[in-house]
């Protein structure tokens, strides 16, 4: 056993000295965390919007006013948010997967679960009316005009 223990220490230190095992820079982890966080924020905004849109379209009877309102909602929404939401989510997950501490889960499973959680969170936020409060008072003021 003691020989094996020596081997572990020797093998690991050899890999470090030979440069086969290199420490990843701190910025790598900072970027991964920031991207995932941004992905989370943008996805929540997109999710709230889509849930609001769905609820609205299920409720209305498709009169001209409803159609006008729907068009207004679609044109008022900042669609550019979709791009950073997807990009930061994908890159964040990829970088975090490279931390490689977690159990190996297929990336598409992580992304699909994440999106489902986002849809659920968006629905909850919409139901409790938090999106209305945010669109009137918070930093998202003026960003979305749902109703």
């Amino acid at each position, binding site marked *: 056993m003691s020989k094996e223990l020596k081997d*572990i220490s020797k093998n690991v*230190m050899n*890999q470090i000295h030979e440069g086969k*095992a290199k*420490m*990843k820079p701190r910025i790598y982890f900072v970027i991964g965390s920031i991207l995932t966080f941004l992905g989370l924020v943008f996805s929540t905004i997109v999710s709230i919007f889509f849930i609001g849109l*769905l609820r609205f379209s299920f409720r209305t009877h498709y009169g001209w006013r409803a159609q006008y309102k729907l068009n207004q909602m679609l044109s008022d929404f900042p669609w550019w948010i979709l791009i950073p939401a997807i990009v930061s989510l994908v890159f964040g997950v990829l970088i975090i997967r490279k931390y490689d501490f977690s*159990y*190996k889960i297929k990336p598409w499973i992580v992304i699909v679960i994440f999106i489902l959680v986002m849809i659920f969170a968006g629905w909850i936020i919409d139901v409790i009316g938090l999106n209305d409060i945010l669109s009137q008072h918070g930093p998202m003021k003026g960003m979305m005009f749902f109703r």
Partner: protein
Amino acid sequence: MTEIELSDEEIIEKVRTSNQDLYAVIIDRYQKKLLRYIGNLIKDENKAIDVVQESFIKAFVNLNSFNTEKKFSSWIYRIAHNQAINLAKKYQKETSLQEDWVFEKYFFIVFRATFFILFRGKIL
């Protein structure tokens, strides 16, 4: 102050900033404990040695993600534990793909059920 008197976290800080050779002290402190732990987990001494060695390498590569305000022991144990689980899954996969298939099928059923409840069940 010699490295023997330093805490794990202090040594890690030195490894990160100035002296990578001090990582050997960390290995010496934990290899026996980890071997015992992983050995109990996977019941195969040779694989346990591989897991422990790979865990130390992984910990070194990702050392900058370690928060020195937290305990290093918990961190290294978690890495080794996950490494052992990944190894177990890998061997399981080699012997049978059945479990993966069941998981994917189950996932698909849950996805369809969620979709049905949300959009057909008029919850929205």
